Every structure is written in structure tokens, then in C-alpha cells.
């Protein structure tokens, strides 16, 4: 077919079909850039830095503080006055007036109180006491805040070494072997904290 004749300028055809060189290159460059931008924006996720681990840091510091304060005696060391025992030792030994429910309310107060007056009721805990005897390390469950952990929450475990005196029989004893009364033992109390 004969080419379509159009007006001639300068002796050359102004419109011809001999190849849209720049157009094709420009179009392919444009497509390349847009596709790259789209892929980049859809694959990288920007979330506020300090995501999961800061919550763990806050919970762990809070749990350690609470155990430390419960393990700090409120009376001075003096043989003529009150025995130098911390509340935490008394809870674990189950001394008179320091039973299970007092540990629960004490720990709950410490971890849930906020300065704006509204307690942080989402924090839950379970506690157990780990002892060592001979070559065996065993655990006895100690207390909990009542809720079961579903396993999906951020949980941290804090622990503290406590010196306890295994009480003589008559006062329900701390049931850890080898059951020698008035034995001074070191046990580890472990508390798992999570935010429900």
C-alpha cells in the first residue's frame, strides 16, 4: 500500500510510523517507576517503633519492683523487737495472719495501682514456689489472680530468691521436702505476669 501522503516540511515527513522511540522508552520508564513504588509501599510496614518489647520491659520492671518491695522488711533488724522477716517470707511460710489471700491482695495492689486513681485491672498473675532438694528442683503452685492465661498475651516471668523458715508442725507447713521443721531454706518464687 502506498504511504499516506501528508504535507511536507523541510523535505521530511512530519508524521510517520517509523517507530515511536521516545514514546516507548518513556512509557516503559513510567511503568517501571509506578510498579516499583507500588511494590515498595505495599510490602514495608511502618509501625511505631518500640512495639512488643517495650510492654515486656514495663511488665518485667513492675513485677520485679513488686516482689522486691514485698521482700523488704518493714521493721528494723533487732533481736529484742520484731523478727526481721519480710512479708514475702511470711506469705510463703503461711505464718499466722499472712495466708494466701494476703499475698494475692498485696501483689494485686502493688501491680495494679496507678497514680490517676483507676487501677489497671487488666494485669493478671500466677505464682509458684520453686525449691531445690538434693538433685531435684520442684515447683509447687502458690497463688493466682483467678484468670487463666490463654497463651496469646504478652507474658513475662519475674522471680526472686527468698529466705524462708520451714515452720514447725501445727501451722500448715510449706510443703516442700525434706520437711524438716525450722529449717532455713532458700526458695525461688516465680510470678508470671500478663496483660489480659
Amino acid at each position, binding site marked *: 500500500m502506498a504511504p499516506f501522503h501528508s504535507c511536507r516540511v523541510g523535505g521530511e515527513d*512530519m508524521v510517520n510510523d517509523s517507530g515511536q522511540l521516545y514514546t516507548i522508552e518513556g*512509557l516503559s520508564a*513510567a511503568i517501571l*517507576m509506578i510498579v516499583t513504588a507500588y511494590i515498595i509501599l505495599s510490602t514495608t510496614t511502618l509501625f511505631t517503633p518500640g512495639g512488643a518489647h517495650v510492654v515486656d520491659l*514495663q511488665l518485667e*520492671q513492675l513485677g520485679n*519492683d513488686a516482689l522486691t518491695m514485698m521482700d523488704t522488711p518493714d521493721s*528494723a533488724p533487732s533481736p529484742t523487737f520484731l523478727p526481721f522477716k519480710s512479708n514475702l517470707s511470711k506469705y510463703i511460710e503461711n505464718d499466722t495472719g499472712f495466708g494466701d489471700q494476703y499475698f494475692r491482695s498485696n501483689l494485686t495492689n502493688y501491680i495494679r495501682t496507678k497514680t490517676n486513681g483507676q487501677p489497671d485491672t487488666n494485669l493478671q498473675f500466677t505464682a509458684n514456689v520453686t525449691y531445690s532438694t538434693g538433685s531435684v528442683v520442684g515447683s509447687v503452685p502458690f497463688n493466682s489472680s483467678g484468670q487463666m492465661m490463654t497463651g496469646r498475651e504478652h507474658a513475662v516471668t519475674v522471680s526472686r530468691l527468698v529466705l524462708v523458715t520451714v515452720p514447725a508442725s501445727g501451722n500448715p507447713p510449706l510443703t516442700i521436702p525434706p520437711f524438716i521443721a525450722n529449717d532455713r531454706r532458700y526458695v525461688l518464687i516465680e510470678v508470671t505476669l500478663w496483660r489480659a
Partner: protein
Amino acid sequence: MRNDSGLLSIDFIAGFTIFMIAFIVVITMISGYFVGLESRTIDNDAIAYRTGVILVEDPGYTANSQTSWELNDIDHTFNILRFGLAYSDDPLGASRNYPNILSSSKVSKFFNKTYFPTRNNAVSDDYQSRLMFGDRPYWYNISLCEIGGSCYPPATNALGDPQGYGYIRRVVKIREPGIVNIDAYYHNSSVAGGTYEIPMNFSALYSYSAPYLVDPLQDPVTIRINNISSLNASGLPHLSQVSLVESAPIQTLDEFVTIDGVPSKHPPNDVVNTIDLTLEPGFFKSYASKSSNFKIRYTFLGPGYGMGGSTPTTNFTPGPGNINEPDWPWPRFIPAVLEVKIW
């Protein structure tokens, strides 16, 4: 071959236009990429955690390291290099044996707006330059509340609560020094006038481990004598002077003594029921050490009876504080919660 005819083909214009339009669209999309990125908030949690540690586990530091930072008066607050609320019986030493025990004088000073006013968002703010050590100004809110009790006024340079902030919560115990309570009924003398002396044997008071000891060099000293009306006197007892005595009288304490709860009633004066002596923290710093031995002498004149006769009473030893026995009561420990918010 050089084309210097100065003519652009339509093909070139079309291709270039398509490229430029796509370029501008992509650049606009990229600017949306930066919306979630904010470098200002990256370190808020870290600053909050560090501030919490400095407040709760560090006793603070002054340029003049002989005195603890809370004993500097309002004209000398420039000496304070670092705040810290932890109790330590030795200004140079650490409080590492019992972390999280706070000194009540430090806590009162820290939250006192007269000493440390907050200036909005300025790096020269006392709290920012002595506690947070940041490169840029932060908004902060530090609050302390007793568990089951009252709160201290928060230290903050902001007006409201922010949307997002760095946060840490610490559980502490505030060490409150004890008040000496003396019931005059048990120290009655049938002698008109006479002196009553309270021994302050610093070696005995400091003989316990920190923070359980009694610390007259850093704590406020409060002595209350009540029930004076039981002295069975024919007239009101007349308190002529209260003085600090070592081997000889050193200083009169009349200006620190309040009679019957009336702030303007100082010795010499008649006493109906109570005598209160209040010495501010750091009173003994200028001339006492941990081995000093003082007495506080109450001198009564006639016609009413006094207390104790002219012989000193039995020794005041540290103890739980019993109204019948003269004890210098141990400090109490009050659980509290400290929160730091930084944004």
C-alpha cells in the same frame, strides 16, 4: 550525526511527557511513605525508663558532695547536678543495698514548685537539665501516689494528657522518719522547775543498717511532749528555754519550739498541754557527725512542776516507739507508685 535544527519530534515530547507525569505521581506517593515515620517519638520509652531508674535507684548528686541534694536551700539549688529520690545515709555512698526505698525529704523537695518551677518545654527547666538529660525539650509528667493514700502534686510542664507517650511505672516504699512522742505523765517530778533532757546518742541511733536506722543528720527531728496537764502542778508549768547541749549548752532552740500548737507561742512561756520541737532536715549538719552525743534540754521554772527533775532521763534508744518507754522510733515504710510519662 548532530541534529542542531532545534526541532523536537512529537515522539520525544510524548515519551517525555509520559515519563514526567509518572515521575510526579510516584513522588507524590513517596511523600505518603513518611507519614508514619516520626523520629521524635523513638526514644520516649527509653527516656521514661531511664528517668524512672534515676529517680528510684539513685540518691542524687551535688557539686558540693558533702551534703545531700535536698539540704541545699533555695539560693543554692544550682549545686544540684542530678536528682534522685533514693534514700542513702551517706551522701557520697550509694543506696544499693535496699533499692526502691525513697527518702521522704527528697520526695517533698522534688515535688515542691517553689524550689523547682517548671518552665514550659524549655531545656533549661530544672527537671530536664538535672533528670532527663535530653538533647531536645520533652513534655513530661512525673507523679507519685501512696498506695491507698494521698498523692503528691505531679511535676509536669504540660497541661493535659497526651495521646501517645513513653511510660514506666515503679513500685517503691517511702521512708518516713518517726516522731518522738513523750507522755509527760510518765516523767512527772515533784520538784518545781527542773530540767528534762532527751539524750541523742548518734552512735546508737546510727547503729542499724540503712534504711532502718534513725538519721538525725538528714531527717527532720520532731519531738512532741504532750499530756503536760497531767503534771499535777499547782499552777501552769513555765518552760523557760529549750537548748541543745553537748558538754555545755551550744545553741538555744527556742525559735523551733511551739507551745500548745500555737505557732507564735515560743519559750519562755507557760505550757498548758503540749510542747513541739521541729528541726528541719540538715539542722545538725554543720556541727555534728555520726558519732556525736547531744542532749536536748527543756528547762522548767516554777511555780508549776516540771518534768524529770534535774537528772537526765533514761537513754533514748532506737526502737519501735512506745509512749511509756522513751524510744526514738524507727522510720515507717509506706508503699507507693511512681509513674513517668514522656512525650
